[in-house]
């Protein structure tokens, strides 16, 4: 397996791809839950970037940052799912296209 060394840039490219998939998911999919999952994917791609850079540069700050991001993401899930459940209970649907009460 000579010549196939996995460097930090591989991780960065993977993270960029995951981030792009996340953005595409938010833009293309119309189900609030799937859009929310895509946002979580974006946050995890950020974590991957932080950890890979941290390891590459020998700086611990990136790994600490990724822990904080995980905590914030967990807090976001709590509120986000509650909002989606509230919408679903009222409308029996989590499709954002059916939310057109507010014009725009």
């Amino acid at each position, binding site marked *: 397996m000579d010549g196939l060394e996995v460097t930090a840039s591989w991780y960065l490219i993977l993270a960029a791809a995951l981030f792009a998939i996340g953005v595409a998911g938010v833009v293309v999919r119309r189900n*609030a839950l799937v859009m929310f999952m895509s*946002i979580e994917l*974006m946050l995890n791609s950020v974590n991957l970037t932080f950890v890979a850079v941290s390891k590459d540069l020998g700086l611990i700050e990136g790994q600490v940052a990724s822990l904080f991001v995980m905590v914030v993401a967990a807090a976001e899930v709590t509120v986000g799912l509650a909002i989606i459940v509230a919408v679903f209970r009222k409308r029996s649907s989590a499709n954002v296209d059916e939310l057109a009460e507010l014009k725009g």
Partner: protein
Amino acid sequence: MGNASFIAVAFEVVLLTGALVTILVGVVAGRNRSVWGPLVGMFFLLSAVAGLWQWLEVQADGGGLYFSTQNLPIMRSPMVVMDGFSSFAAVILGLVGFVAFLGSWDLQVRLGKRAVEFSSLMLLGVAGLHMMAATPNLVVVFIGLETASIAFYVLAGFTRTVHGSDEAALKYFLLGSLASAMFLYGVALTFAATGSLSLYGENSILNFLSSHIVSQPGILLAGMSLMLVGLMFKISAAPFHQWAPDVYQGAPNAALGLLVAGVKIAGFAAIARIFVEGMASQIDTWAPIVAVIATISMIVGVVMALVQDDIKRLLAYSGVSHAGYILTAIVAGSGGYSAMWFYLATYAFMVVGAFTVVSMVSGPGSSATSIDSLKGLGKRNPEAAWLMAVLMLGMAGIPFFTGFVGKVLAFTSAANADYVWLVVIGVVTTVIGLAYYLRVILTMFSSDEGVELATLDVSMSARFAVIIGATVTVVFGVVPWPLLDVVRNALPL
């Protein structure tokens, strides 16, 4: 070890204590608003006092960086900065929080037992907003941003069972989280390019950029752009403003003052700290982008506000144009700080006052708020109508109101930085913008013939909030010098 200091985090400590105490008192006192209501107001005022304390300390000693130590490698870079910039933001956020709390009191009366949580979230949100202005670390900026945003998603959906509030909360949540994630990826890429998350100190981004040649300029550029996009979303600058009108329309009327004013103050403080200070050497890269965003914001905000029939959507688009005007001050770099702070400090009070008038007329919850609902306000409640007229003239930028002084300052600083074309667009859009502010005023003082108009009774607290907003608008419009002297000292470290 290290340089931990209580005073540097006094504002957050007061507000977070307040949020916890409010919840605990709420458990005991429950529906008895006369117990915890004054308590919340007191905590907001105390936080402004804490900000004032920081301000006096900074003016005496020059402030500094806190919460770092050389002993621990992860704590090498400071986490908190106390300077004129952060302490001025503390004073303004504390006062705006207090006035917004007064304005939201009618809603809290209606919410019953749930109102305790509402007040508590307001306190938490303001603490998060100030973290954005008072930290040199990009990850802490993100944590402050999310603390405030998550609290505000809930506030937007608080009246979830009626008219569009749940829809507003969902839209705010999805687009807000998208913006936060973009900002965070920008932080990560900046970290990848420079190896630093800190805006100040020895191993800051600025020091790295001045002593090294960036090996991956593309990554740095992408990082800067993503951070900029994330923050532009939050301050609702066009073309990242689409969420604002929908969210404002659906959210409870009485909660909007803080949502709009607070996020603008903190968002601009963060933009100034990260870009004007932390990326000072890259100003030739980001300033043109910001200038273009400012142009689009001014034009889109003014044109779209002209065609709105809903007063809250009108105020949302007017907010987009105001974001554009404040960005003209950012474009000027560090020369625009005093213009930015003057504009933000006065606009915040105007906007809280205006949304309080809307909630007086249409009720504090989420409800339809067409401009026509203001019809006859001049007869139903002349005081509210005149105060609203003052606020509208202030936003329009008529001489002798604060909006005029703020715009003159912002345009002057942009002209000094050789962005004359931006100033021309700003002046033209200001003149066009007069039309919709005057439309609101004319609607208020017109009434259909032969229609019997019931007098509109308003509560003391809401009245008080609007009076404060209008007073700030007139007083600092006629005699701006005291406030100008203060904002000249509201400088970053």
